[in-house]
C-alpha cells in the first residue's frame, strides 16, 4: 500500500474557531484527493489543550484580585495570553482554576536569559498583596 501521513496542529482562542479550521483542512484534503480517484484519506483529530479562560471566567475574582495586587505592588497591570499549553491551563481543566503571574525573567530557554532583582522583588510583593486581598475580600 502507498501511504503517507501529515501531522499538524490547529490553534484558536475558541473551540468554534478550531472546528472551522479543522473543516477547512478537511475541505482542502477532499479537493486534492478528488484528482486521485484511486486514493483516499482519513483525518484523526486529537484534543491537545483548551483555553483556560473558559474556566477562569467562572471565577473572575482570580484575575481581578491579581490585577489589583499587581497595582498595589506598584506596577501597571498588563493582561495577556499565552501561546501554547501551560501547567495553568491543565490545572484549570483538572478542577483547580489557575492564572499565570509574571516571575520577571526574559529570553527563556536560552543563554541570553536575564532577570532583575527588582522585578523579582515586585513579584514577591505581588504574592503578599494577593494573599492579603483574598482575606480582605472574603
Amino acid at each position: 500500500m502507498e501511504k503517507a501521513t501529515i501531522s499538524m496542529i490547529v490553534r484558536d482562542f475558541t473551540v468554534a474557531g478550531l472546528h472551522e479550521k479543522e473543516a477547512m483542512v478537511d475541505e482542502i484534503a477532499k479537493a486534492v484527493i478528488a484528482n486521485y480517484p484511486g486514493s483516499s484519506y482519513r483525518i484523526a483529530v486529537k484534543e491537545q489543550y483548551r483555553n483556560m479562560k473558559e474556566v477562569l471566567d467562572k471565577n473572575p475574582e482570580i484575575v481581578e484580585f491579581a490585577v489589583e495586587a499587581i497595582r498595589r505592588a506598584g506596577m501597571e497591570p498588563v493582561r495577556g495570553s499565552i501561546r501554547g499549553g501551560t501547567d495553568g491551563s491543565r490545572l484549570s481543566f483538572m478542577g483547580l482554576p489557575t492564572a499565570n503571574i509574571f516571575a520577571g525573567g526574559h529570553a527563556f530557554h536560552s543563554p541570553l536569559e536575564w532577570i532583575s532583582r527588582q522585578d523579582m522583588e515586585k513579584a514577591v510583593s505581588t504574592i503578599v498583596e494577593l494573599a492579603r486581598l483574598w482575606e480582605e475580600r472574603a
Partner: protein
Amino acid sequence: MTDTVLDRFLRYVQIDTQSDPASPAQPSTEKQKTLSRLLVSELRAIGFADAEMDSNGYVYATVPANTDKDVPVICFCSHVDTAPDFSGTGVKPQIIKNYAGGDITLVGDKSRVIRVSEHPELNNQIGNDLITTDGTTLLGADDKAGVAEIVTAAEILLKDKSIPHGAIKLLFTPDEEIGRGVDKVDLKKLGARFAYTMDGETAGTIEDETFSADGLEISITGVAMHPGFAKGRMENAIKIAGEIIARLPHDVSPRRHRRPRGFCASRRRDRLDGKGNDFHDRARFHRRWPP
C-alpha cells in the same frame, strides 16, 4: 539573617534541574529532586512544618491562616525544572549592579550578546541589578525566579503578623518544560480552591488565556505501482500529501518536530483584540508544544 529573593535565586539556579522528554522516569531526571529536597529543608527551617516532597518529586507546603475569616485556600505554584533546549549544567550567574543601559556581552562566551534592540525590556531596567548567565548555559529564571519568589513571600506571610491571610498552599512541580508538570499532582492533598503559577515574564503581567489546540493527522492511502498496472494508475501518497500541504494556509501547517519539546519557551503575550487569531508565530509554537 533572612535570605532575600536574590540570595535564594542565585542558590537555586546553580543546581542543574534540566528535564528530559526522552526519559520515562518520574520525575524525568533524578537531579530535579536535588532542588526539591533543598526546598523542603529550607521550608522546614523557615517554619513550614508540613513541607514535604512526595514520591513523584512534588513539593507541598502550607502557610497556615492567621485570620478567623473564611478565606478560599489559594495556591502559588512554580516548576523546578529547566528546559531541555539548552544546558543547565554549571550555571554561573553574573550580576550587573545598577545597570546603566546598553548591550550586555556575556563574559564566558563573548559571541553572545544581550542586545537592547532584541530585548527592549532592558530599557525599563536602568538602575536595576540584572542577573545574566556567563553565556555557556541558560539561567533558569524560568522558573527558579518563581520558586525563589514564592518561598520568599511565604516566609513574609508566615512571620509578619500584620498581614492577615487565609491558608496558602505552596506547590513546586517537576517536568513542566516537557509537558508533564501536572501529570502526578495530587490536587486532593493540595486542597486549594484557586491557584496562581508564577511563571510569566515581564513584571506586571497576568495571563488568563491560552490557545485551544487540536492535533490533526491526515492519513493518505495512494495507489502503488504494480506490475501490470498502467503507469498512469500510480498515485503517489507522498505527492498527494505535498499537494495538501501546499494548499494549507500558513497558520495551519505540518509540525517539523516529532520529539516532545518544552512549551514554556519564548512564551509571548498578545494584547487580545477581538478573536485574536494571530498564528504567524508558528516556529516558536512548534518548539513549545510537544506532539
